[in-house]
């Protein structure tokens, strides 16, 4: 199938360059304040209460788990400059009527982005509040028309040790693979993010496009996606394959189901000294609990 690329102005070039280069100042003053001010008025998705301040931009972009660039928290921000985010394509294939290889520019133009402030709870018991820019994954999936055989969605990260030096060591089986049940993938909270704090996604945060599933542990939110495949069988996801007793396929945030080696009852919100209680489904139970009605959350952790 021949995919024609648009040859007009690229979506990523629209930002005025002076704004782009001064984006930190701009973000610090303008966007952050605007997002914070708008937060309580965005209905439905945004559950961030008054005391849940946005995690500072510098923390969001300097404290990352992205093993493709090293296993230290500071490694991604140090090493991810080698990632080339243009040109970039995302193949959407498998059990769909209209498989398609999307150019990232086409995605940015076809699916209008909106701001979503979500909590991010890492399986390591720390958390952040991040203003993402993105669009619902469901919009993209509907565009390719899943067949009736599609029951799961599998996501794959770029595999290129030249660009991702962390892949030269076999810490995890590469490429990184994640998966969702189709109903989880179609849920309106499930986001494909292309930016944060009003700017394009920094490389260390999973540029140019990543998944954000706010009620699941962070490792489910796969970064730098190159392939999305609709399948009928549950995908073999990376952390689940590497350490099956510690990381399940579902990985729903749940204070009552401890990680075998540490407690999940509390979390440290980055920027705060005291730990706080972890909430079931990361505080999104009202939106997502019915996806798991009748399911044993301890068994399907």
């Amino acid at each position: 199938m021949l995919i024609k690329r648009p040859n007009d102005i690229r979506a990523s070039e629209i930002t005025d360059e002076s704004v782009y280069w001064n984006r930190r100042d701009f973000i610090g003053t303008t966007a952050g304040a605007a997002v914070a001010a708008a937060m309580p008025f965005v209905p439905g998705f945004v559950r961030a209460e008054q005391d849940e301040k946005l995690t500072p931009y510098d923390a969001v972009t300097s404290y990352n788990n992205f093993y493709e660039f090293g296993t230290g928290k500071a490694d991604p921000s140090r090493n991810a400059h080698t990632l080339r985010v243009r040109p970039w394509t995302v193949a959407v294939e498998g059990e769909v009527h209209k498989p398609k290889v999307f150019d990232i520019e086409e995605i940015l133009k076809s699916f209008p982005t909106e701001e979503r402030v979500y909590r991010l709870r890492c399986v390591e018991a720390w958390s952040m509040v991040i203003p993402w820019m993105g669009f619902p994954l469901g919009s993209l999936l509907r565009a390719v028309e899943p067949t009736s055989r599609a029951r799961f969605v599998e996501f794959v990260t770029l595999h290129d040790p030249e660009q991702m030096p962390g892949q030269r060591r076999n810490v995890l089986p590469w490429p990184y693979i994640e998966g969702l049940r189709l109903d989880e993938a179609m849920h309106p909270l499930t986001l494909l993010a292309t930016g944060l704090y009003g700017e394009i996604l920094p490389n260390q945060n999973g540029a140019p496009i990543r998944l954000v599933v706010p009620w699941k542990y962070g490792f489910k939110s796969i970064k730098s996606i190159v392939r999305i495949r609709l399948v009928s069988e549950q995908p073999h996801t990376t952390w689940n394959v590497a350490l099956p007793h510690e990381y399940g396929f579902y990985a729903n945030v749940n204070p009552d189901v401890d990680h075998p080696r540490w407690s999940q009852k509390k979390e440290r919100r980055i920027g705060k000294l005291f730990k706080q209680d972890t909430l079931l489904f990361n505080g999104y139970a009202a939106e997502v609990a019915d996806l798991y009605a009748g399911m044993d959350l301890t068994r399907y952790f």
Partner: protein
Amino acid sequence: MNRARLTAWVIRPTVFVASLTPFALLLWDVFTGNLSANPIEDITHRTGRWGLTLLLATLSITPLVRVTGWSQLMKLRRPLGLFAFFYLACHFGVYIALDQLLSVSDILEDIASRPYVTVGFASFVLLIPLAVTSTKGMVRRLGGKRWARLHRLVYLAAAGGVLHYLWLVKIDKRDPMIYAGVLVVLLLLRLGGRRRKPSGP
């Protein structure tokens, strides 16, 4: 310059400066706001790592003396051990006060239910009598033989420290495996020499 003078005037001060530099850098980062976005984790990891590093450095002195025959180096063993204890006490203190916020019930639950905490806690506790009996007066009071026997606990503490590190990392075991490898080498080096020179750790 003879060996005794070299040890006293060059090597010993160098070891002191080298042992305190990580602490100075840590303080610098604390006061200039240069820690990671998760400062408590950062302090905990850095003090734990340096404590274990210095503990292995302490264990390297005896084999080093044996290999080089340079007995003056033995004088480095106590300060290195005490520096190791200092870092591990910081590590322990940060865990108790900042991570667990002095909550006794949380700490007890943590020790009881998480093997990496259990072994880390036990290893630190084992080091306390060694630090207390590190003075010349205590060596005299205990008598060389009993003192040496007591101080063999350091092997257990070091092994426990390495295990603590191995058990807590998520999946990347490279760094703790380096520590484990160094510890194994240091213990193997002792097997050959033990019969000839029965001394403490």
